[in-house]
């Protein structure tokens, strides 16, 4: 029973370690952390003496608290420790590094680590990310408390339980739990994207690789183009293809268009054939035109079916589509001849034909139209989606209002991390 109660890592770092006779055998340099049940635990203490590192296994530790650290071993019985070993070290690999607080959806820095004795082991229960941790590391926690007490206020604890900690470095994966990952996938994709763009490239990709396909796809579409390319480049082609399949074809096309041609081709070949065709079609358009903005997923029916039939078909067809605002009416040559809103369709007499309820005078643009013009039309006529047609009036796709909003008001994660 080496550790009772709780303790902060900074309380023991650089403290002397005594042998059974009371001689100092070294000073605490770091601790090795391994996966434990239920939380990660300390497997050994690394001590430094005259520039050399030695390892003391946890079983050889006698007392471990903030005043005394002692071992059953004598100085000559210590094992050498090789600094190049791939162990996970708390001070080197966790302290002062950034992590994601999955509970608060924030990137924070680890100021200290809280340990707790449990069944003879020392478990890592939480990380301190607050002011207290900073003051403790600077050695002024108690004095600051006194000063604040004088002003009748208190220092609050700001601990994140290990259960909510999502690491940003690959080496930490071994000791993390699956809970934070689940919590991350429940976050809004825009928040996730912001987390990814707040940290360095490597850390961002670590976080991204950890997401499940669906979450990854959602987060990816919220990132700015350079970041998207970085993320896709960091994963293998197969997984990239799977993620892109989860995305809407217009968004997938946006991602691919920012990749080097070779890489884009490779991924496109790995994507499911039908999806790949949709994406390919969209890739042909310039990015800042209606063609570049549009999606080719929309609902279009012939004019001679009844409202009842249209509703029936709609229930089946709309399943895979993110959002539907209008139903387009096309003739046998796929030329756009009319439109009806979902509302009008639901309220209309079930026996009428689509051609009876449709509005035939319809605003549309060509694929080459500038994106700002598209935005102006959408704003001027108060429509939610604008159809894009070719010179023969054949319906190619639609630009919806949220595609346009992103141009006018880019979300935070697309704007870049900071403003300096």
């Amino acid at each position, binding site marked *: 029973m080496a550790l009772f109660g709780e303790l902060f890592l900074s309380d023991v770092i650089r403290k002397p370690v005594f042998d059974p006779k009371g001689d100092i055998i070294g000073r605490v340099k770091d601790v090795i952390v391994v996966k434990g049940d239920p939380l990660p635990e300390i497997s050994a203490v690394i001590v430094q003496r005259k520039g050399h590192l030695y390892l003391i296994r946890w079983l050889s530790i006698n007392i471990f608290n903030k005043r005394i650290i002692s071992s059953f071993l004598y100085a000559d019985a210590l094992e050498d420790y090789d600094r190049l070993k791939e162990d996970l070290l708390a001070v080197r690999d966790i*302290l*002062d*590094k*950034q992590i994601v607080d999955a509970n608060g959806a*924030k990137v*924070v*820095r*680890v*100021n200290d680590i809280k340990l707790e004795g449990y069944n003879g082991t020392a478990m890592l229960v939480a990380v301190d*990310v607050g002011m207290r941790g*900073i003051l403790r*590391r*600077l050695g002024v926690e108690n004095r600051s408390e006194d000063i604040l007490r004088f002003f009748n206020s208190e220092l609050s604890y700001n601990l994140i339980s290990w259960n909510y900690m999502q690491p940003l470095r690959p080496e930490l994966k071994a000791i993390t739990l699956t809970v934070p990952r689940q919590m991350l996938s429940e976050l809004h994709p825009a928040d996730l994207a912001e987390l990814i763009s707040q940290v*360095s*490239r*490597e*850390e961002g990709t670590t976080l991204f690789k950890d997401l499940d396909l669906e979450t990854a796809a959602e987060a990816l579409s919220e990132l700015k183009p*350079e*970041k998207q390319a*970085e993320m896709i480049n960091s994963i293998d082609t197969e997984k990239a293809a799977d993620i892109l399949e989860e995305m809407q074809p217009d968004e997938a096309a946006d991602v691919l268009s920012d990749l080097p041609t070779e890489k884009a081709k490779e991924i496109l070949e790995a994507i499911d054939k039908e999806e790949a065709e949709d994406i390919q079609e969209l890739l042909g358009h310039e990015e800042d035109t209606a063609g570049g903005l549009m999606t080719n997923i929309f609902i279009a029916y012939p004019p001679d079916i009844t409202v009842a039939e249209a509703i029936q078909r709609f229930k089946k067809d709309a399943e895979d589509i993110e959002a539907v605002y209008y139903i387009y009416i096309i003739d046998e040559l796929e030329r756009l001849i009319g439109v009806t809103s979902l509302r009008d369709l639901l309220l209309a007499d079930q026996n009428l034909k689509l051609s009876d309820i449709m509005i035939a005078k319809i605003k549309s643009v060509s694929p080459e139209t500038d994106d700002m013009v598209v935005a102006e039309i959408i704003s001027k006529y108060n429509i939610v989606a604008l159809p894009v047609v070719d010179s023969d009036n054949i319906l190619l796709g639609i630009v919806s209002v949220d595609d346009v909003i992103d141009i006018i008001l880019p979300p*935070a994660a697309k*704007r*870049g*991390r*900071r*403003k*300096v």
Partner: protein
Amino acid sequence: MNRWKTFLVFLAVMGPGIITANIDNDASGITTYSVAGARFGYDLLWTLIPTTIALVVIQEMCGRMGVVTGKGLADLIRENYGIKAAFFMMVGLFIANFGNTVADFAGWAASMEILGINKYIAVPIGALAIWILVVKGSYRFVEKVLLFACLIYVGYIISGIMAKPDWAVVFTSTVTPNMRWDPEYIYLSIGIIGTTITPWMQFYLQSSIAEKGIKKEDYKASRMDVIIGCSITDIISFFIIVTCATVLFPNGIMVNEASEAALALRPFAGDYASLIFALSLANASILGAIIVPLATAYYICEAMGWEAGVNKSFGEAPQFMVIYTIMIVAGALVVLIPGAPLVLLMVLSAVINGLILPFVLVYVIRLINKPRIMGEFVNSRGYNIVSWSTVAAVALLTVLFVFATLFPVA
């Protein structure tokens, strides 16, 4: 075709190096160059060449770290040397940069007075404009404003040419080292290095490169950006010294301030030269006042792990907002309150800059030699010899500068 592609890549990554280097010529830098030119003519021009080399060597390493790690220098120091190192570094940086901000507001006030605008109007408006630009402006807009402001530095080149120096003499003085055992001469020559190589530049450059997300493959273009930027800084310094040396030195006019230099130019070089000089000073000052407080608030929050960002509310990022606001509001107030210890603050800022620079440089070299962080991008052995000797020389000179500032011989 291939050359074009290289050029396009360069344009895409251009920015951080050039912007950093230009803001380096802030109000205190311009003052030093003006004083140097007016007091010793062309004699100090030669110091610019070694200064540029040292600047390039140091900034290149920071740029490389930014590209490879995607993290700022404050981040790396905190992660590798712990919280104490980072904390004291940040306290030092805060005080030094507060001094820089005050110097910039003072430069703004002085140059506006030359243009006939009272400082009690100019300073509050300037401070408010900075606040609005940063808090309400988008990143792209701010970068455009900054790049445009960098163009205004050309004003110094114009006023240098308008001064009609004897170019042959200027050229010879630039390439001939000229050492003199005059305390003031030595002080000013070290001062040129001290104001050109300042700690915040390393932090700023590395962060903005990390920010831009420049890829390792594009590192060569980024290095070009850093080298060009450093050269531009010293070309501007060169023209400031030349202007004051040509016009003021032969007439025996001594100046203590950049704004005095602008005024003194008028009778000899004409209204336009004087006006351009003053306008360029105003531009440099306001540019410094935009960047320095903002950058400082960012590094501190980055190192301490606090939420940061100008688009965050006070409740979301309290520390960030407090630091940023204090720098701007207090900086502007110090300039406006009569009898505020302006000179003392300047001296303090110079001393602290000089004291933390050696530490920053040693951290930079030690970090860049860690394979764990830099992988194959660590310094080569040859480059290490160059950088260690540069760092040793710069560190020694800045410590001398600190002594000379604290115990003036004259």
